[in-house]
């Protein structure tokens, strides 16, 4: 691999080894506590709040988040923090204050089971199947990315990397169940924070501090084309202020998003839909030792979430600034040329075989945006260069940025052997715990919501525990299959994201009505959810992002509306799906009979559930007080970076 590979020292491998031994050790130690299925699937509801809180945030802070947020930091600057201060904290506070009492207080062992208790079997079935498939793919995507990374970076074989890492995850999940996953997530949390903090520090020091960074990004905003960030020019504050560019309308910020889509689409629909209904994160809170710990879980998680932009978005901004000033010849990592050896051959071909190979021929063969001057230079010097030199120069001629490579490019730039091992271990840790988190959520939903509900009712606890272990193995094998699928067929990823986008977008409307409106009926919820999903599919079929061709990216029925960015299309899609599901559920509920009595709905619906008295706790520790403090903190951050 050209300039992607890095040399690791023994010390780096030792650090990685210590981490792997630690997680295996945790699994091993926890094995003796796994006596019942409740221990295995729900950690026996015995975990203190600080651990569930950190695991809650860690389950979300997978490697894809880390890589993706740094990418967005470079592409969009500080506005990326909307995914935190608008798109996460308010929803986390809402979950803690209003929704957790229903999840933890009801007899439900999973989010789909809550839907069964509140509505009926159909809603549970729909939700559990889509969730199960989604977690498998999510874990496959995570492992595929890990295996690719190890392959590109260290030259390990893709298959070997995939199977070995999966085997490690399998061992510790099998031994310690959900507790293993939660404990290693906390370990991963500290790994990421402590592994990346020095990289961010060195980056900031290199660039010359915050004022220097914002000054350079001001220039980036006015000429982003210089580093192929964007073809348009923006106001100077486009990369350094979170809200001002949004007020200028979707054409005037690099995200291409308008204020309504940001606040309603991301801040309400997508954010509440993810944080309040996704069993992957909610499961962590449900493992807490009591109601008060369960409610504090998302609030404890919100504290690091609020300051994470420093760790995950700032590196992207640093990279953009470094690339703009071309400091030490740094550039944003280019997209890797796939068929490089063939292209090198083409360049090297003797004139007799290939008389007039042109710059355009090379560009076409590569299939990426490239600098013509650089290709021309390679062609004219080809005779005097070795194959490797040509390959390096060709790769350097690519002007398309591989934003997902930003975080690694900084790790490579700033980490000497030693620190390098720590930073890479942090990445490795987050990929593996991404798989573990998804697999533990999957095995719970499978065993409780599908197997026990439809296949084998009324079996002994040992039987379900046995099933849990079997399905953990099956789940990991299926994740590996998904990893291969995503690796072989790049479009698979787009389609999966698309379909789950359709299914997830309306989900929060169902929960909101279920928890706060006792009149919502099972039929209303079921048909509303289906209708909401269809609304998203229809919306997608009739809209497109300018620059995309109608097809998988939308607009295949007709193009009613065109959006400046895929993000805007996505936020609007979610908004429509939510409204579609909400309206349908209300209308159908009003025309159908409520099959559940008030008694059955006690503990499941707000108006029928006795309010929790927090008076036993110190006032500052009450969820409502903590939540308010967090929200105020969030507003302050938004004002500072307005």
């Amino acid at each position, binding site marked *: 691999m050209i300039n992607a590979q890095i040399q690791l020292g023994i*010390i780096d491998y030792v650090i990685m080894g210590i981490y792997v031994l630690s997680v295996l*050790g945790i699994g091993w130690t926890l094995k003796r506590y796994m006596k019942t299925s409740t221990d295995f699937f729900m950690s026996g509801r015995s975990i203190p709040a600080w651990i569930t809180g950190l695991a809650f945030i860690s389950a979300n802070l997978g490697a894809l988040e880390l890589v993706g947020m740094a990418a967005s930091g470079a592409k969009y600057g500080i506005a990326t923090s909307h995914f935190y201060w608008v798109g996460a904290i308010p929803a986390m506070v809402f979950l803690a204050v209003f929704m957790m009492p229903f999840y933890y207080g009801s007899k439900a062992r999973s989010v789909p089971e809550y839907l069964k208790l509140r509505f009926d079997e159909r809603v549970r079935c729909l939700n559990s199947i889509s969730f199960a498939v989604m977690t498998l793919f999510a874990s496959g995507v995570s492992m595929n990315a890990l295996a690719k990374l190890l392959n590109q970076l260290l030259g390990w074989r893709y298959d070997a990397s995939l199977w070995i890492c999966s085997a490690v995850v399998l061992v510790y999940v099998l031994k310690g169940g959900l507790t293993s996953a939660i404990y290693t997530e906390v370990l991963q949390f500290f790994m990421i924070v402590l592994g990346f903090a020095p990289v961010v520090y*060195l980056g900031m020091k290199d660039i010359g501090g915050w004022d220097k960074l914002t000054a350079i990004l001001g220039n980036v905003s006015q000429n982003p084309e210089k580093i192929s960030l964007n073809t348009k020019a923006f106001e100077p504050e486009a990369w350094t202020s979170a809200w001002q560019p949004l007020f200028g309308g979707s054409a005037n910020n690099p995200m291409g998003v308008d204020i309504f889509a940001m606040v309603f689409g991301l801040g309400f629909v997508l954010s509440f839909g993810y944080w309040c209904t996704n069993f992957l994160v909610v499961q962590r809170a449900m493992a807490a030792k009591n109601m008060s710990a369960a409610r504090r879980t998302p609030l404890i998680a919100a504290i690091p979430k609020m300051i994470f932009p420093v760790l995950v978005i700032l590196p992207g901004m640093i990279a953009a600034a470094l690339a703009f000033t071309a400091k030490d010849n740094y550039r944003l990592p280019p997209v890797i040329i796939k068929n490089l050896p063939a292209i090198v051959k083409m360049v090297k071909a003797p004139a007799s075989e290939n008389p007039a190979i042109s710059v355009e021929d090379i560009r076409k063969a590569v299939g990426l945006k490239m600098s013509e001057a650089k290709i021309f230079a390679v062609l004219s010097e080809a005779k005097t260069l070795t194959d490797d030199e040509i390959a390096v120069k060709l790769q350097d001629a690519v002007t398309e940025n591989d934003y997902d490579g930003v975080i690694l490019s900084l790790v490579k730039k*700033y*980490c000497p052997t030693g620190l390098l091992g720590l930073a890479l271990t942090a990445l490795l840790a987050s990929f593996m715990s991404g798989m573990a988190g998804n697999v533990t959520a999957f095995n719970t939903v499978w065993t409780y919501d599908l197997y026990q509900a439809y296949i084998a009712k009324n079996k002994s606890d040992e039987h379900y525990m046995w099933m849990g272990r079997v399905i953990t193995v099956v789940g990991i094998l299926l994740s590996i299959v998904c990893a291969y699928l995503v690796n072989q067929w790049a479009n698979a990823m787009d389609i999966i994201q698309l379909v789950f986008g359709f299914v997830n977008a309306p989900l929060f409307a169902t929960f909101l009505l279920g928890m706060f409106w006792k009149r919502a009926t099972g039929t209303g919820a079921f048909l509303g959810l289906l209708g909401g999903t269809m609304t998203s599919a229809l919306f997608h079929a009739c809209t497109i992002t300018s620059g995309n061709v109608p097809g998988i990216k939308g607009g295949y029925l007709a193009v009613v509306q065109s959006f400046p960015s895929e993000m805007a299309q996505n936020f609007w899609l979610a908004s429509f799906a939510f409204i579609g599901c909400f309206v349908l559920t209300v209308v159908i509920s009003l025309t159908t009979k409520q099959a559940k009595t008030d008694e059955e709905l006690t503990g499941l619906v707000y108006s029928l559930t006795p309010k929790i008295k927090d008076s036993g706790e110190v006032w500052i520790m009450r969820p409502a007080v903590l939540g308010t403090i967090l929200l105020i903190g969030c507003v302050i951050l938004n004002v500072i970076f307005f």
Partner: protein
Amino acid sequence: MGLDLRFPIGIMFSLVGLILLVYGLMTSGDIELYRRSLGININQIWGGFLLIFGSLMLGFALKGAKSKPEDPKKQ
């Protein structure tokens, strides 16, 4: 759950910190190695910090284990 998570966190980070610290001390003055980290011996500094962090975690875990001697056995 019976295992206090502060133990494995403490042990792991103390160990990693110690290794980085010792490696940093061994390589101090290696200009070529630390060119990347802007001439700062980041291994020594960060290793020291991780060692302190890990030891603190271990300390808290030991204190916690002492103040709650022998969990009453679960039935």
